[in-house]
């Protein structure tokens, strides 16, 4: 029985994320379908997605390719020891390079690890990936004190990040 005065359910971010993190429905009206499942209006769904895009919680909406399947098989984690007073500025520049997927600042661990700037680089061959690393090296210029490429040789586990009660989130690299 439908109560005509029934108020619309509250759309929580958590519910919307859970309903969409595995992908949008492949139906002509994906947002209306999600809305129906959550008991809210289609506008509530699209407005919330638009807001999360605007504040950066959603990076983008679209195709998430498996980069190995696109032929990008030479995947190197490049790590760089960059002068602390330059790393924010230079990290932002490295992150803009088209062949860099992930770019992070990480801590040094005294005696064990000295590289702070991490940039995942993808190429169709090691020659191509090495050339990308050379581009980064040149960009870092005189702020650079050292760097290396760590090529992956084996995927030991890849289940994606899981949060309670949700489907696995597949990573793109």
């Amino acid at each position: 029985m439908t109560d005509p005065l029934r108020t619309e359910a509250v759309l929580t971010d958590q519910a919307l994320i859970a309903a969409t993190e595995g992908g949008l429905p492949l139906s002509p009206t994906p947002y209306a379908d999600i809305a129906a499942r959550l008991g809210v209006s289609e506008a509530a769904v699209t407005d919330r997605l638009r807001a999360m895009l605007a504040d950066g919680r959603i990076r983008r909406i679209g195709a998430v390719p498996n980069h190995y399947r696109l032929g990008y098989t030479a995947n190197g984690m490049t790590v760089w020891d960059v002068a602390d007073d330059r790393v924010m500025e230079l990290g932002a520049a490295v992150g803009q390079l088209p062949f860099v997927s992930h770019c992070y600042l990480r801590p040094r661990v005294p005696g064990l690890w000295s590289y702070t700037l991490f940039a995942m680089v993808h190429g169709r061959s090691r020659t191509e990936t090495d050339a990308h690393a050379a581009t980064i090296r040149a960009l870092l210029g005189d702020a650079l004190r050292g760097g290396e490429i760590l090529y992956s040789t084996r995927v030991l586990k890849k289940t994606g990040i899981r949060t309670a009660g949700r489907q696995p989130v597949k990573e793109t690299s």
Partner: protein
Amino acid sequence: MTGLPHGHDPRDYDDIDRAIINGLLDGFPLSPRPYAEAAAALGLDEATLLARLKSLLDHGVLTRFGPLYRPESIGGLAILAALSVPEERFDDVTATVNAYPEVAHNYQREHRWNMWFVVATSTPERAWAVLAEIEAATGLTVVALPKEHEFFLDLRLTA
């Protein structure tokens, strides 16, 4: 796909698929008929685009189609960690590390620090506890490298 990465097989996708992948990396419309709108921009019809996307997903060329959330926004914390594992212990240590459901992925890399894994949990306390347990169970030093800043995080490789 799991296991070893494999190379590009040109039979996996054709020029239309390539145009779909490259054209829909970003900016999928937030409109009532988004597939119809996106298809029109690519010179396709809605049914063709939907069928193509289904096939690309079924064949693993796309891992998903939809919003790409930042991990923090789905309530989690992920810590990158490394181990320097002696060759003869590599398989045993792999089993120990991978046994934790909190370990989301784990890669062997060519380096003295030859095992790199990500511990993803809903609370920081649990993430650090897992790393301490791995250290105790393996007797190896874990280098934990939580991110301090994210400069950019996206993948816009073209097909």
